[in-house]
């Protein structure tokens, strides 16, 4: 196997792992905002956390916090992945 071929395999694996991260993180993104914040908001509103009905909290506060966490988790995961496949910027 020459080096060229090796590089390509490597990059394919890198891309595949990246896609796996994307699928997982974007599923959470969808579930929290469209799920908890919209589709199941009424059901969740029957649960109270402190003074907040839960569905309302997800729609006006929680979803935004989750978005933030998702981005920074992706930053950390990708920085590791870049190193693992040796494709990070020097």
């Amino acid at each position, binding site marked *: 196997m020459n080096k060229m071929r090796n590089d390509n395999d490597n990059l394919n694996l890198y891309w595949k792992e990246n896609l796996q991260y994307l699928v997982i993180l974007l599923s959470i993104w969808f579930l929290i*905002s469209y799920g908890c*914040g*919209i589709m199941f908001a009424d059901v969740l509103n029957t649960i109270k956390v402190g003074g907040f009905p839960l569905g309302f909290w997800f729609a*006006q506060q929680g979803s935004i916090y989750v978005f933030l966490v998702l981005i920074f988790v992706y930053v950390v995961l990708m920085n590791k992945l*870049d190193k693992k496949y040796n494709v990070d*910027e020097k």
Partner: protein
Amino acid sequence: MDQLQIWTFLIVGLTFLLYIGVAIWARAGSTKEFYVAGGGVSPLANGMATGADWMSAASYLSMAGLISFTGYGGSQYLMGWTGGYVLLALLLAPYLRKFGKFTIPDFIGERYYSKQARLIALLCAIFISFTYVVGQMKGVGVAFARFLEVPFTTGILIGIAIVFFYAVLGGMKGITYTQVAQYCVLIFAFTVPAVFISLQMVGNPIPQLGMGGTLEDGTYLLDKLNQLSTDLGFHEYTTMGMDDRVNVFFITAALMFGTAGLPHVIVRFFTVPKVRDARKSAGYALLFIALLYTTAPAIATFARTNLIQTVSNQPYAEMPSWFTKWERAELLQFEDKNNDGIIQYVADPTVNELIIDRDIIVLANPEIANLPAWVIALVVAGGLAAALSTAAGLLLVIATSISHDLLKNYLKPDISEKGELIAARVAIAVAVIGAGLAGMNPPGFVAQVVALAFGLAASSFFPAIILGIFDKRMNKEGAMAGMIIGILFTTVYIWYFKPQLGGPGTPEGYWFGIKPEGIGTLGMLINLVVSLVVSRLTPAPSAKVQEIVEDIRVPSGAKTPVHAH
């Protein structure tokens, strides 16, 4: 001149001096500095600048008011205008940064190896940015007029002069560093009153927690507000109407995908040094945006409760001074229908005696809570910072589209770097003045279309960029067909169902009950399907183009944008 006016002139004057100072310090010397700030902005500074660029007069002045009067219904804006940053960070920013050019038309033109595709993207970018910026200039005019008590036209002229100065001089570099200063001003101004009011009402200095806190009598604030709302016949604050679900869903999605497709947002990620900085920068941007976006619903809750308790069933003669002040500005209107001298503020329009303009919530909030004059003056400076920073970012996109995409890459490829820089400055000057004039006398449609710019961005750019990165087989035929059909469908639907635009449609005719504000989501799906089908029926892109796609998928070997084609 009263004390409030003195404070206003003082604080607004100081902030303007700050912006001008920053602009002189950061003026641009090359096209690279003019378009992408030299590609050397730190992710943290870029995140702040993106936040200021993103948060317009609408976010700052109108959003909390909108939530205040719609309760749960306002959530679509909160989620819609933040969730798009997840898409940006995960699906777009790092790849576009790796691609390493200046504009979206650059990407579309090169990835789809076609001048026509570049031209379509260019027209979409100008159309979207211009509708958006005219609304901003109008906002600048209204803000100046109201705060400095000058005529509306004078207000716009002051706005034009300020933006003209630092955008023409500094380009992206000047704009970016001014926006960092503007972000600091606007977030400070937005949160200070919120902290004070949260302390007053629930004894908690953090508004985000305060809105779930308890009042003096031990009841939860939100329970109290629900009670007050339903007693007066309004919708319960924390729940959504059953018929709203489809539209909340579609409008949220249109705003999210639109955010990720707006040219003035995407271009920010060309300004950071590395691919990993692009990811991080999107995270910082959302962090800085979230500070305001999580505070806004708290302000909405506090203000709504305060307002109802202050006015409802109270004698008109005993209203505080802010009431008469906003009455004079015609943003509050009281009509004593049953002549009892008491304000009946209820949902039923035949009995209701008080009409309140939503926009006063943020402005009147500090006064309603009896905060000192300097806090109110600070809110004014924040509103102006929000309007100016967004207008500047949009104008730069328009100018870049003309000087770089149209002139350099389409009409006159042999133009020198110096010539292009002059052209860029002339283009931005023309754009500032054009947007200002249009803002003075906005064609009726502009105000209506501003929010719909998101639908247009979602239905044109978002799929073309995503497919360009994630689908190697996507070719120019597919992308062009998708963009044209997506944006045409969305534009026609909006026109048809917006009576303000002269369209003949009525709400009964809505497809699946979707309002025009949410149709961009369907337009985007149509774009995706058309692109995929057409691309599979036409020849695959060349091996060279497929190599470009492979290359942008990995961070290593990224260069700062170079000015050569």
